[in-house]
C-alpha cells in the first residue's frame, strides 16, 4: 500500500511540472501560429506523396521504415526541395517517461557518487523503475488516442532525392529513444526548401505497429548452406560409423609430432605445448585440444615431460582435463600432475615474455604451437628456433601463418589444423565432418564458376541468391 502511494506521489510530482510546461509551450506555439510569416505561396513545393510506413523487416522490433514518392519539385519542376523532414506523432506520455528517465539517471549518479547502493537509493530506484514499467505498459493505449494527447515530433532529415527513412529506436524502456512495439504509430513527411518556413507536408501514414521477426530472411543463404553442410556431415558420419574407410591425405606437420615426441624422449628434454591466445570457444583452440590430447597420451606412454603454459583460465581448465584423461588413456593416471598445465597471465606480451623465458631455461626438445595466435607468433617461434627446438605450428590466423612458416620446421596452414584433429583422432564424427567439408568446398568452387559466368551474362537473380543481408 505504502509502495503504491509512494509511486503515485512520485509520478504526480514528476509529471505535474511536465504537463504545466507543455501547456506553456502549446500556448506559445499557438501565439506563433496565430501570426504566421508572409510566405510566397508560388514557392511552396509539391508535397511528397504516397507515404507508407511499415514495420522494418528482419529486426528485433522497435523500428519502422517510412517511404514516400519524391515531391514533383525535387529534381524537376521548381527543383527547390532541399531535404525531407520526417515526423512521428508522439503522445505526451512519452515526455513523462523521459522525465522519469532523467530522474533515474540522477539516482544512478547518486549511487555512483556514494559508491554503493544504500537502502534509501535502492527504494527510490525501485519506485522509478516500477513507474517506468507502468508507463511503458500504457504506451499502446496512449498511441490509440491519436490525434488527442500528443503532437508531431521531428525525427530526422534526409537529403533531397532520398525517399526512405528508418525510425529505429531502443528496445530498453529505460533508454531515451525507446519505441514501443505493438503501438499504433503515425508518420508524416515534409518537403523543405532552403527557406525552412516554405515547406509542404504529406498526408499521414498509419497506424503501423513495430514488432520483431522470428527469422531474418536476409540470412536465408546462410541457413541453406548450413543445412547442406549439416546433411552432408550427418551422412558421412553415419558412413564412417558403419566402417567405411574415409581417406585423409597425410599431413607432414602431424606426422612429425610422433617423431618429435620420440626425439624429446631420447634427449631427456621436455615438450612445450602452446595453445595460443584464443578462448576455449575458438574453433582453433578446440582443434588444438584434440592434438594436445594426442601429444599428452604419447608423452605419458614415453614418460617424457610436458609443459603447457596457458593464457586463458578457461583454456587452462579444459587443457588440464584433456591432459588428465590422456594420461588415464595411456594407463598412467598416477603420472599426471596438475602443474603440467598452468596459467601465466592474460596480457599478450607478458605471456610471451614468460613463455620465451621458459623456452631458454627448460630448453624443450620440441615446441608445439597450435591454436589462435596474434602478434606474438614470431616472438615465440624465433625464440624456439634460437633454443634449438624442433617446432611444429598450426593456426587459422592468416596473418600469423607466414611467421610460423619462416621460423618453424612444420606448419599447418589454416584448415589443416582442423583436419589434423580428425587425422589424429580418427573418430567417425571428425572424419565425417572433414569429408563433408571437402564436398562443401567442391560445391563452392562449382557455384563460384557458375556465378562468374552468371555475372558475365548479367543473370543477377542467380548472384542475388547468395547475397546475405545482415
Amino acid at each position, binding site marked *: 500500500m505504502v509502495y503504491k502511494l509512494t509511486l503515485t506521489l512520485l509520478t504526480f510530482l514528476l509529471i505535474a511540472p511536465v504537463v504545466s510546461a507543455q501547456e506553456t509551450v502549446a500556448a506559445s506555439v499557438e501565439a506563433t501560429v496565430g501570426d504566421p510569416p508572409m510566405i510566397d505561396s508560388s514557392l511552396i513545393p509539391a508535397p511528397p506523396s504516397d507515404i507508407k510506413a511499415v514495420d522494418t523487416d528482419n529486426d528485433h522490433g522497435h523500428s519502422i521504415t517510412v517511404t514516400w514518392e519524391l515531391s514533383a519539385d525535387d529534381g524537376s519542376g521548381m527543383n527547390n526541395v532541399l531535404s525531407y523532414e520526417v515526423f512521428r506523432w508522439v503522445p505526451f506520455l512519452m515526455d513523462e517517461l523521459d522525465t522519469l528517465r532523467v530522474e533515474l539517471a540522477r539516482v544512478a549518479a547518486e549511487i555512483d557518487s556514494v559508491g554503493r*547502493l544504500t537502502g534509501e537509493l*535502492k527504494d527510490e*530506484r*525501485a519506485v522509478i523503475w516500477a513507474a517506468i514499467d507502468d508507463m511503458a505498459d500504457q504506451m499502446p493505449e496512449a498511441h490509440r488516442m491519436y490525434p488527442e494527447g500528443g503532437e508531431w515530433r521531428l525525427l530526422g532529415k534526409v537529403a533531397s532525392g532520398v525517399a526512405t527513412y528508418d525510425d529505429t529506436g531502443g528496445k530498453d524502456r529505460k533508454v531515451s529513444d525507446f519505441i514501443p512495439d505493438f503501438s499504433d504509430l503515425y508518420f508524416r513527411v515534409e518537403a523543405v526548401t532552403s527557406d525552412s518556413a516554405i515547406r509542404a507536408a504529406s498526408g499521414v501514414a498509419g497506424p503501423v505497429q513495430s514488432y520483431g521477426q522470428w527469422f531474418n530472411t536476409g*540470412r536465408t543463404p*546462410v541457413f541453406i*548452406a*548450413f543445412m547442406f553442410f549439416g546433411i552432408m556431415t550427418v551422412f558421412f558420419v553415419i558412413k564412417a560409423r558403419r566402417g567405411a574407410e*574415409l*581417406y*585423409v*591425405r597425410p*599431413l607432414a606437420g602431424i606426422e612429425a609430432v610422433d617423431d618429435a615426441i620420440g626425439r624429446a624422449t631420447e634427449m631427456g628434454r621436455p615438450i612445450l605445448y602452446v595453445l595460443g591466445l584464443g*578462448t*576455449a*570457444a575458438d*574453433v582453433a583452440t*578446440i582443434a588444438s585440444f584434440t592434438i594436445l590430447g594426442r601429444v599428452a597420451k604419447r608423452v605419458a606412454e614415453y614418460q617424457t615431460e610436458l609443459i603447457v603454459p596457458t593464457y586463458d583460465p*578457461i583454456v587452462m*581448465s*579444459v587443457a588440464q*582435463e584433456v591432459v588428465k584423461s590422456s594420461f588415464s588413456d595411456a594407463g598412467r593416471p598416477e603420472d599426471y600432475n596438475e602443474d603440467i598445465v598452468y596459467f*601465466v*597471465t*592474460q*596480457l599478450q606480451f*607478458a*605471456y610471451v*615474455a*614468460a613463455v*620465451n623465458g621458459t623456452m*631458454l631455461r627448460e630448453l624443450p626438445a620440441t615446441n608445439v604451437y597450435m591454436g589462435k595466435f596474434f602478434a606474438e607468433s*614470431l616472438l615465440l617461434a624465433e625464440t624456439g628456433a634460437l633454443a634449438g627446438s624442433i617446432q611444429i605450428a598450426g593456426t587459422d590466423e*592468416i*596473418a600469423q601463418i*607466414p*611467421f610460423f612458416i*619462416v621460423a618453424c620446421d612444420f606448419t599447418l596452414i*589454416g*584448415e*589443416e589444423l582442423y*583436419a589434423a584433429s580428425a*587425422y589424429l583422432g580418427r573418430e567417425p564424427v571428425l572424419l565425417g565432418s*572433414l569429408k563433408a567439408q*571437402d564436398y562443401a*568446398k*567442391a560445391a*563452392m568452387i562449382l*557455384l*563460384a*564458376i557458375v*556465378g*562468374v559466368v552468371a*555475372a*558475365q551474362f*548479367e543473370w543477377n537473380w542467380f*548472384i542475388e541468391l*547468395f547475397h*546475405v543481408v*545482415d
Partner: protein
Amino acid sequence: MDFGTFLWTSLAAFLTLGTFSFLYKDNPFYKIAEHLVTGVATGYFLIILWHNGLVPNLFQRLEDGNWYLLWLDSSRPLYLIPAILGVMMWTRFSKTWSWVSRWPMALYIGISAGVAVPVEMSARVNKQLYATMVAIDWNNFFGHGGFNLLDTTSGLSQVLIFVGAMSALIYFFFSKAHTGVFGGVATFGIWVLMIGFGASFGFTVMARISLFINRLQFIDDNWVQNAFNTVREPNPNWSGWFQAVFWVIMVLFIGYAVKEFVDYRKRVRSQTA
C-alpha cells in the same frame, strides 16, 4: 622533468634495455623484466576482471535483491544462473567434486560454438562466395594505360584472383590425394598462398621495425636527453642526479657484458687446455 618522473622513465628505459638484452641470451635483466611484467599484468587483470566483469555484470544486476533471500527477489534473478555456473568452476579445488566444473565448461564451449557456426558460415563462406561472383572486365583486361599488371581492377587481375582463390581452395581438399592434374592445381594453390604469405610477412616486419624505432626514440628522447639536458632547459637542481641514475643503469649493463666476456675467455681457455 622532475626527479620522480625521471626515475620512472629510467625504470621504463631499464626494462626496455633488459628486454632487448634477451637478443643476446637469457640473463638477470631479462628475468627482472619478465617477472615484473608478468606479475603486474596478472594483478592488473584481476582488478580489471573484478571492476569491469563481476561488479557491473553480476553484482550490480543483483543488488536490488536481498542476500538473505539469496537474491532470488532481485528484478533480474536469471543472473544467478551464470553466478552458480561460475561458482561451480571452484569445485576444481576438490578432487572429489572437480567433475562438477565440467558442466559450466561444456555449456560455455557448446554455446560459443553454436553462436560461432552461423557467424563463420556467413562471413567465411557465403559472403566470400558472393564477392567472388564478379563479371570479368574485358574492356580493361590489361589495366589502365595499355598494360598495367599492378592495376587491381583490370580483368587480368580479376582472373588471377579467381584462379588463385579456386586453386588455393583445392589445396585444402583432404580426402583426395594430391596427385596428377589435381595435385598440379593444388601445388599452384600453395604457391599462391606462399606469395600472399610473403607479402604479409614483409608488411608486418616493416610494422615491427617501426615499433623498434619508436622504442629507440623513447630511450633517446625521454631518457638520454633528459639525463644530459641536451635539448630541454637544464635542471640545475637535479641534473647531477639524473646523470647518476643514467650511469648506474649503464654500469649494470656494461658490467654484465664485461663479466660475460671474461667468462667466455675462461671457457675458451679451459677448452683449449
